[in-house]
């Protein structure tokens, strides 16, 4: 049985109970098992809506007039939209059928009010997932009113099923970006950026949240979404976290070996145990070759404590994909990476070279060639600053405070020029 998570927002206790029962029965008739939550005030409803950001409701039944002097159901609707916490909303209104409104306001004003209410509602929530539904008038007999209500809720359930087909919308897009290119080996410079374009997948998730995923990740997420029941809500986080499930479901081949590497290859139909040790090594190298270059690059950045958040994700993804081969990749990386001693030597030589250049008139206040991307004063810049401080202190102590201020102001105004940042490195800095 499919499941539907429902929130009913209604201030009248009797109506709240009636709606709960009706929705449960009607959705059950359509093959859904309902999990119903209820709220009777705007405040409670908005709190639940905010909390449902990571676990959206499939369906929200929302009364407009909730007895609050300040806020209405329309404000709850706005919260549901902002936090993407509802897939579909049925806005229940009494204004449409309440004859007392006509009597007290006059027909034309009441009609204007009804139109305005619809306009306000559609301005707050995507029209294709919002139904504005009239509650049966309180003036008609109870049995007739119940029958009408049941009819309208039945229509809502039908629309819910229909709209469910639109749950995931996706399209390929071309994304222009700057690709980081590692600096040539043996240079201290870090990386530079090259403009590049790549195909990404833009996926609109069940409640309107849009994620853009790079080629393969996008494909996998789409594959996962398409393999699921269209009726179930999936948040982007769930889809991404569940990504490896695709491989798991595909690889439902029974594990025949305790060795994870053997299991990995056997799951792909390779008779691992029948291969010689040399063939096995060759196979591991071949499996690694596709991902190892990027892995090595990212591990290098990680060792330099220079891994951007997106690269962290990338590294985690590669590790996930490598599975039991991750250890082999790490061993290969450790074998190939430059030794610490060599690195330190080259850094010392580099620093000495830079010292000879003296203070450089160019942009940047920091020596960006240190180990950290965020930058720190170079030794030369530190010497310069200390010297400036001594000069200013001397001037202040000898009654030339104004002149010291003047110098300080000047240095600050031209701060970018008083730095140690040789031009030839600029294109490589981040």
């Amino acid at each position, binding site marked *: 049985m499919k499941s539907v998570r429902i929130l009913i927002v209604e201030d009248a206790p009797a109506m709240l109970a009636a709606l709960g029962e009706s929705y449960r029965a009607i959705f059950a008739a359509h093959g859904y098992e309902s999990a119903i939550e209820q709220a009777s005030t705007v405040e409670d409803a908005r709190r639940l809506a905010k909390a449902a950001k990571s676990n959206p409701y499939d369906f929200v039944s929302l009364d407009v007039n909730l007895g609050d002097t300040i806020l209405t159901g329309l404000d709850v609707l*706005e919260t549901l939209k902002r936090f993407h916490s509802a897939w579909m909303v049925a806005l229940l209104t009494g204004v449409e059928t309440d004859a007392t409104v006509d009597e007290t306001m006059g027909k034309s004003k009441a009609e204007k009010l009804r139109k305005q209410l619809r306009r306000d509602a559609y301005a707050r929530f995507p029209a294709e997932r919002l139904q504005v539904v009239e509650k049966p008038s309180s003036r008609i007999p109870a049995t007739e009113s119940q029958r009408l209500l049941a009819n309208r809720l039945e229509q809502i359930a039908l629309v819910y099923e229909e709209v469910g087909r639109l749950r995931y919308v996706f399209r390929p897009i071309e994304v222009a970006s700057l690709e980081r290119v590692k600096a040539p080996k043996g240079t201290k410079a870090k990386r530079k950026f090259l403009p590049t374009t790549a195909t990404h997948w833009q996926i609109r998730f069940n409640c309107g949240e849009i994620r853009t995923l790079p080629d393969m990740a996008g494909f996998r997420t789409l594959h996962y979404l398409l393999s699921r029941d269209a009726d179930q809500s999936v948040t982007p986080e769930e889809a991404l976290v569940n990504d490896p499930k695709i491989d798991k479901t595909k690889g439902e081949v029974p594990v025949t070996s305790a060795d994870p590497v053997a299991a990995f290859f056997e799951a792909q139909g390779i008779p691992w145990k029948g291969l010689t040790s040399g063939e096995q090594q060759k196979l591991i190298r071949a499996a690694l070759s596709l991902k190892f270059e990027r892995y090595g690059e990212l591990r290098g950045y990680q060792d330099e404590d220079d891994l951007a958040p997106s690269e962290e994700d990338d590294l985690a993804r590669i590790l996930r994909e490598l599975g039991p081969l991750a250890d082999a990749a790490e061993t290969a990386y450790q074998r190939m990476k430059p030794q610490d001693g060599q690195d330190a030597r080259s850094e010392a030589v580099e620093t000495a070279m830079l010292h000879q250049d003296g203070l450089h008139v160019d942009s940047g206040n920091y020596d960006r060639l240190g180990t950290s991307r965020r930058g720190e004063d170079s030794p030369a810049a530190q010497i310069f600053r200390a010297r400036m401080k001594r000069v200013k202190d001397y001037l202040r102590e000898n009654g030339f405070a104004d002149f010291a201020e003047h110098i300080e102001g000047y240095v600050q105004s031209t701060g970018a020029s008083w730095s140690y940042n040789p031009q030839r490195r600029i294109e490589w800095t981040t």
Partner: protein
Amino acid sequence: MASLIPNEWRYVPPVSLVVGRGPYAVALATILGTEAITSGQLSAGLEPNDGGGYPQVLESLAQVVFVVSESMPAAEVIENHRAVWHWVGKLSSAGDQHELAILFVLPADVAQGFEDVLAVGLGVPRIDPAVTGHAVWRCAGSLSELIDVLTGIRPMDLLPLRARWAADTKHTAMAGLRATLVQVNPTAISEAARQVLATFSGQEYLLDLFCRPPSHRHGNLLRNWLNAAVTNTVTPDWLKVARNQLDGWLTEDEIARTQ
């Protein structure tokens, strides 16, 4: 020129924000483990990143403290309040539905009338920490009292405030005036101006709350303009000039922004 987002926010997203200048604001910011930002920084707006977006660095923001100096008019405090919400709207994914506890720290000897004017600016009958999400504290008390008041505020987002503005006569009269400016109807303009004057009758000084800084100067210009719009004949040429002038004097329509 738009303000740059403080770089440290990217690494340590702030939980508290202190708005104001001077030693008190700086000391308070230090105690709360954040930095003080000035009215100038706030009102300059924000500079988007290269992609045209904004980093969501205010996701964790829970408290905002406005340190009001003795010379600061209430209109400027309200303008800062408006600017903070613009920042939150851009730098938090919850936007105007981000919940905040807001505290106005007033000088010890400031008159009660100042508080009342702030309440008018916020569109509330009085500033009540349990109902409005805002509180007022005077510098006379101890720091622990301030912290108690701050933690006692029930956080609230902007929706209830906007709903109050939409129901408040002063805010709706001003919204009506702004709305008629886009029309080419001299009679409607005169009528809207008359409506504003009637609503603010005896409290014309409150018009400063709806004016851009320097709010009092713009408020004076607005008061003169309103009187002229009611007493003189409004011609299309006059209207054209007036529209440009009012654009420069009046703050944005906060009610219309929601609709």
